C-alpha cells in the first residue's frame, strides 16, 4: 500500500463536552476529543470509566444530556443509530452481537444492508435488478471473507462457531458496510495470543488498505501501545489524558488511575 492512505488527515469526528447520566450516575462528564481521518485511536481506562458509553453515544444509541457530536463537520442532535450507520459509522460489540440464527455469509451480507436499494417487490421476484444487486453485493462480501480468511465457515450458522471466529465474523459484518469510521469495542477480549495477533493484523490491514479510521477500546496495553496512533484515557467519566502512546504512558494521572489512587 502507498504511504498516502496512512497519512493522518483532518478531523473526521469531534465530540465536544459530552455529558451522559443514568438517573444520578454520571457515565460521562464533559468529555471532548477528536478522531482524525485514517488514524487508529485507542480509548482506554479502568472498568466503568465510560468507554462503551462513549461508543454508544457516538453511534446514537445513547443520547447525551449535554454536548455535541460533529461527524465530518456536521453537527447532529438526537438521532437513531441507523442514521449513524448511514453516515458511515460501523462497530463491533464487547459481547458479540451477531445474528445467531444466520450463517456467516448472511451475517456479512446483512452488513451491506444499506448498499442494497431494490424494493421488496423486486426482491419477491428475485430476478433482474434485484438478482444483479444480490450478486454484486455477494461479490463484495466474498472479498471481505477472503480478507478475513474465513472462507471455510461461509455457510456455517454463527452460533456454532468458536469465540475467536465469531469476533472475526463480527468484524467482517462491520467491514461489509465499507465504513468511514469503525468502532471496535474490545476486539481482543478473551482471546489467546495467536488470535490477538491475527486480530491486530486485520485491524492494521483494514486501516492500511482501505484507509478506514478506527477507534477502539482495549484493555491489553501492549496491543494499544503497538497499534494506535493516539490514545484517549477516560476515568470516572472524565478524560484525563489524550496524546501519543508514549506521552500517555508517561502521564502521572493515568498511572494513578490504573494503580487506583483514591479520588477526593
Amino acid at each position, binding site marked *: 500500500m502507498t504511504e498516502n492512505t496512512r497519512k493522518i488527515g483532518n478531523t473526521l469526528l469531534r465530540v465536544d463536552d459530552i455529558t451522559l447520566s443514568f438517573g444520578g450516575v454520571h457515565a460521562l462528564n464533559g468529555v471532548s476529543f477528536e478522531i482524525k481521518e485514517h488514524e487508529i485511536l485507542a480509548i482506554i481506562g479502568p472498568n466503568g470509566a465510560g468507554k*462503551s458509553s462513549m461508543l454508544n453515544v457516538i453511534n446514537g444509541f445513547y443520547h447525551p444530556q449535554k454536548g455535541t457530536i460533529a461527524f465530518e463537520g456536521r453537527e447532529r442532535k438526537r438521532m437513531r443509530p441507523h442514521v449513524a450507520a448511514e453516515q458511515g459509522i460501523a462497530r463491533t460489540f464487547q459481547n458479540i452481537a451477531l445474528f445467531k440464527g444466520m450463517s456467516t455469509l448472511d451475517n456479512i451480507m446483512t452488513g451491506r444492508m444499506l448498499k442494497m436499494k431494490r424494493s421488496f417487490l423486486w426482491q419477491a421476484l428475485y430476478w433482474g435488478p434485484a438478482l444483479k444487486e444480490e450478486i454484486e453485493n455477494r461479490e463484495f462480501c466474498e472479498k471481505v471473507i477472503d480478507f478475513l480468511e474465513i472462507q471455510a465457515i461461509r455457510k456455517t450458522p454463527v452460533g456454532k462457531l468458536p469465540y475467536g471466529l465469531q469476533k472475526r465474523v463480527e468484524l467482517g459484518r462491520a467491514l461489509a458496510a465499507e465504513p468511514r469510521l469503525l468502532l471496535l469495542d474490545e476486539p481482543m477480549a478473551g482471546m489467546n495470543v495467536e488470535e490477538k495477533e491475527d486480530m491486530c493484523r486485520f485491524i492494521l490491514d483494514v486501516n492500511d488498505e482501505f484507509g478506514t479510521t478506527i477507534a477502539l477500546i482495549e484493555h491489553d496495553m501492549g496491543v494499544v501501545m503497538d497499534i494506535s496512533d493516539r490514545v484517549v484515557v477516560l476515568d470516572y467519566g472524565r478524560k484525563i489524558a489524550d496524546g501519543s502512546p508514549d506521552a500517555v504512558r508517561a502521564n502521572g494521572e493515568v498511572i494513578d488511575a490504573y494503580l487506583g489512587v483514591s479520588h477526593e
Partner: protein
Amino acid sequence: MLYDVLIAPFLDMADSPVFFAEVVIVGLLTGVMYSLVALGFVLIFKASGVFNFAQGVMVLFAALTLVGLMEHGVPTWLALILTVVIMVVLAYGIEWFMLRRLVNQEGIILFMATIGLSFVLQGLGETMWGSNVKALDIGIPDASFEVSGILLNEFDLFAAASGAVLVAVLAVFFHYTRIGRALRAVADDHQAALSVGIPLKTIWVIVWAVAGMVGLVAGIMWGAKSGVQFSLSLIALKALPVLILGGFTSVPGAIVGGLIIGVGEKVAEIYWGPLFGGAIENWFAYVLALVFLLFRPQGLFGERIIERV
C-alpha cells in the same frame, strides 16, 4: 354522534347514581376475578421469568378436577385436598417435563411452550372429567341484600373477601418466610440465586404449585358463579390485558389492573356499548391495554427497562 359518545353517557350516570354504583360494583367484583387469575401470572413471571399463557387453563383444570371429584361422591373437604395435591403433582410434572429442559431459552420460546402446555392441560382435564358444563356448589351463601338502595350479593362479597385474604397470605408468605425470600432472590437474578445455594428447581415447583392453588381459588369463584366450562379459560385470557396495565412483576399492579379492567369494561358496556351495537366487553380490555402500552409500556407499577449493548 359526538354528543352521544362524549356527553350523553355521563348524563346517564349522573341521572341515576344508584344504578351507576351498582354497575361499578359489578365491575369491581368481576375485576377481583381477573385479579385472581392475573396474580397467578405474576407469581410465575416473577420467579421464573416465564410468561405462563396456561394460567387461564390452570384455573379451568383446577376447577374441573374439583368438580369432577365431587361428582364422583368425594366429600367437599377431601376433594379440595385432593385437588391441591393434584396441582402440586402437576407443578412437579411441568418442571420435570418442560421447564428444566427449556432453561436459558428466550422468553418468547417459553411463552410459546406454555401455549402448548395450555392445550395439553385442557385436553387432559376434559378427557378425565368430560367437557360438559358443570355446576360447582361448595356451599357459599348466595343471597342478595340492599345497602342504601344498592343491591349486593353475598356470594360476590365472599369472593372479594377471599381474594383479599389470599393476597394478604401471599404477601406474608413472600416477605416473612424463608421460601418467600428465596423466591424474591430468584426473581431478581437466577444466576446469583443459584450461586448462593438456592435450589432453583425446587423454587420453580413451589411457585407453580402456588400459582396452581391461586388458580384453584379463582376457579372455585368463577365456577360457582357461572359453571365450570371451557369458556372459563377464555375469560381468563382477560388477565393478559390486566397484566399489561399493572406491570408483569407487580402484585399490587395485578390487583389494581384487574379492578380497572373490570370496572372499565362494565361501565363501557353499559353506557357506550349500545352505541356500537353491544358486546364491546369482548375487546374493550384488550384495546384499552393496547392504548396503554403505547404510552407506558412498563405498566403502572412495572420497572423501567434500560437497554444495554
